[in-house]
């Protein structure tokens, strides 16, 4: 007898899927606009929102703050910065929209209790032009408290993993809800909703991390961001954009601690083993990528590119000279013991607020940053839309800023009616970070309320819901049917457990889709071969097995990575140029091609046939 879960149904008007920064912003804003209108806003999260999402462990900086009140920056300034860092391709209407609103979110955070560093004049202390420094250990619990209060009792579902969208029975281009399962009880929940906000994190663990044993989870971006937002969008038939634009960053080796403060505020220098600074002596390699390579600041992928060229030439290891920077700073304060202690405290807080393992690495290797430099390394790639990369759904922009064709009724709505996106889930608008993701959640939350007021009738396809419920529990039944056939429950010809499935997708992506194992290099035939192997893997995922609810969660996280990874492979294959060297290279198209490829790559997977269609979408902007 197949094992069947209990089924619960939850009805609401706006459903927020994912309770990280974007999801908390969406819940806060939607709940506020729902006030007095009799609308129900529900948030569903696979963990506990007090510590969920990429900001769970804290942050030491807010990387997107304009400072419009002090005339520090305008939204147009920010758009021009992002344009340069992304090497030309951004949805500038979306970027502008975040920039003009983001300060209000940060001011709310401060009012709610987030401690922000201040200068003597009362202005926020800048780490760089866009970054402000915070004491952010409790950033997420504070933001979660505001979301919980806004939602009210009974509207927060924690430890529920959302695995599939449900489309409208009468209009398959419209969302009608989602199906998820409890990670604590043997129960499946059908959420019926008039609008759904996709606010999950990006996709990590798609590529093979540098540590493969106990350190498998020590990656730069949160290991619980498993591509669930992208998978739900893809399964709903939403158009995806820029899924080839994955992120690689240079970070402190093995702990992946942040480098922003060291570079921007402390003016530390990155040097190769000969003591050289790549940006100073390899300028000819930047000129090949004009106009972006010859402008400042040097785009993130090009900085990676220089470092990678040095690694290939055997010029590693690369050391960030924390020692030289701190000794210079100590001199500047005349070696005043109290001031030196303050500098040291700030330096350590940068790690202790957000990457404690990097502090642990310093302690384990007896590294005093004032005496010993620290190694930097390039990470494996991550799919994410909130940092210096732009994977995600193709979304409607704000009416007053969006060029023709970039606006279809509701801000941040995907091409599926009623399905909105924010944070990592919304594509082609990078550099939003924590505050911008929260702000984008707010924009989507408000628009979703408007959508619900305009579009009130929706009906789920009950047959599809029933099929989904059965499919969700299939890994239990696969395990139950075959587990006693062998003398080891983890070794069986009829199934694979989710940990080995995770290793398999990481191997395919690293070897065929420009992972660090190949110095981020691939080409058309290699990507085609990767797609063949991914197809076998997709078929084998039908044989995933779960021993318990934790395994079931991991099984569906693997499935979400499969859909995200396949989108990435197909987009990389479609874009016949190398736009972001240092993120990835097409060996068969090794150059930037502004004439033919300064366009967005959009894709759609037909939910019924599973066929993918890819297209070029022209770049347009109203911002000079």
């Amino acid at each position: 007898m197949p094992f069947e879960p209990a089924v619960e149904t939850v009805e609401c008007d706006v459903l927020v899927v994912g309770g990280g920064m974007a999801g908390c912003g969406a819940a806060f804003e939607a709940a506020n606009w729902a006030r007095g209108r009799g609308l129900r806003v529900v948030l569903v999260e696979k963990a506990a929102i007090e510590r969920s999402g990429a900001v769970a462990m804290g942050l030491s900086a807010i990387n997107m703050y304009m400072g419009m009140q002090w005339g520090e920056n305008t939204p147009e300034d920010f758009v021009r910065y992002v344009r340069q860092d992304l090497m030309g391709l951004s949805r500038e209407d979306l970027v502008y929209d975040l920039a003009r609103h983001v300060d209000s979110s940060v001011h709310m955070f401060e009012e709610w209790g987030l401690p922000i560093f201040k200068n003597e004049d009362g202005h926020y202390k800048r780490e760089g032009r866009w970054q402000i420094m915070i004491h952010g250990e409790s950033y997420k619990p504070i933001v979660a408290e505001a979301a919980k209060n806004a939602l009210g009792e009974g509207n927060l579902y924690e430890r529920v993993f959302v695995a599939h969208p449900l489309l409208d029975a009468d209009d398959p281009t419209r969302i009608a809800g989602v199906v998820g399962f409890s990670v604590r009880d043997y129960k499946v929940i059908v959420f019926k909703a008039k609008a759904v906000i996709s606010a999950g994190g990006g996709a990590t663990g798609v590529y093979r991390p540098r540590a493969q044993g106990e350190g498998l989870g020590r990656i730069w971006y949160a290991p619980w961001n498993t591509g669930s937002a992208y998978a739900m969008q893809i399964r709903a038939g939403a158009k995806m954009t820029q899924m080839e634009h994955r992120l690689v960053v240079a970070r402190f080796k093995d702990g992946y601690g942040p480098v922003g403060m060291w570079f921007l505020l402390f003016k530390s220098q990155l040097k190769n083993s000969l003591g050289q600074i790549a940006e100073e002596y390899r300028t000819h390699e930047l000129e090949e990528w004009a106009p972006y390579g010859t402008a400042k600041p040097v785009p993130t992928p090009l900085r990676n590119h220089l470092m990678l060229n040095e690694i290939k030439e055997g010029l590693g290891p690369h050391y960030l000279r924390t020692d030289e920077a701190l000794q210079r700073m100590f001199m500047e304060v005349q070696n005043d013991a109290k001031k030196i202690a303050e500098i040291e405290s700030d330096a350590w807080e940068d790690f202790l607020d957000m990457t404690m393992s990097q502090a642990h690495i310093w302690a384990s290797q007896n590294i005093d940053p004032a005496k010993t430099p620290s190694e930097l390394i390039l990470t494996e790639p991550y799919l994410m839309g909130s940092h210096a990369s732009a994977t995600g759904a193709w979304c409607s922009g704000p009416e007053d800023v969006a060029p023709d064709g970039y606006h279809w009724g509701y801000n941040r709505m995907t091409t599926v009616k009623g399905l909105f996106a924010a944070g990592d889930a919304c594509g082609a608008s990078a550099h939003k970070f924590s505050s911008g993701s929260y702000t984008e959640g707010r924009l989507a939350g408000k628009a979703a309320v408007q959508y619900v007021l305009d579009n009130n009738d929706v009906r789920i396809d009950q047959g599809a819901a029933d099929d989904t419920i059965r499919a969700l529990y299939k890994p239990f039944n696969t395990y139950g049917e075959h587990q006693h056939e062998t003398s080891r429950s983890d070794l069986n010809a009829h199934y694979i457990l989710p940990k080995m499935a995770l290793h398999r997708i990481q191997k395919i992506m690293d070897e065929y889709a420009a992972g660090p194992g190949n110095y981020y290099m691939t080409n058309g035939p290699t990507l085609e071969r990767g797609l063949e192997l991914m197809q076998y893997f997709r078929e084998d995922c039908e044989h995933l097995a779960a021993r318990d609810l934790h395994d079931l969660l991991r099984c569906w996280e693997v499935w979400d990575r499969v859909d995200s990874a396949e989108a990435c492979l197909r987009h990389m294959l479609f874009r016949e140029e190398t736009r972001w060297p240092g993120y990835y290279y097409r060996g068969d198209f090794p150059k930037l091609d502004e004439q033919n490829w300064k366009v967005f790559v959009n894709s759609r997977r037909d939910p019924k046939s599973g066929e993918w269609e890819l297209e070029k979408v022209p770049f347009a902007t109203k911002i000079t």
Partner: protein
Amino acid sequence: MPTFVHVEKCDGCRALAQPACMYICPNDLMSLDVSIGKGFNQEPDLCWECYSCVKTCPQGAIEMRGYADVMPMGSRVTPLRGTDSIMWAIQYRNGEIKRFKYPIRTTAWGSIDSTLGEPDPPEAGLRTQELIGEPKYLHIDALPTVNA
């Protein structure tokens, strides 16, 4: 550096509906071994060392040990989180100890008014570009637009 549980300190949070570590872990790693009534990390190789469980454990029973395949042994990084600040003790492999204290919150826990003290927003507001609390919370006179 995966978390591990000191069995002599952990009481399985018997007074709570579920162990605090199990409630908080963002990656569903902390679980309860019902046979001994103790918490444990069920998948240490997917631990991000976010310290959420370490900070929340009422018994101070959870600690980190550096990833065996990455880090030398012998160091310890230990937090003590209060209501308005957190203290960190860093013990080096060579025995040296550093201590730091940082603020974490300037207001009382539970004090957030998520309405921003504003009345129910009028429906006409939905048709504008302004979010709740704007333009007041922008600290400028009006929301910018490209057509201004």
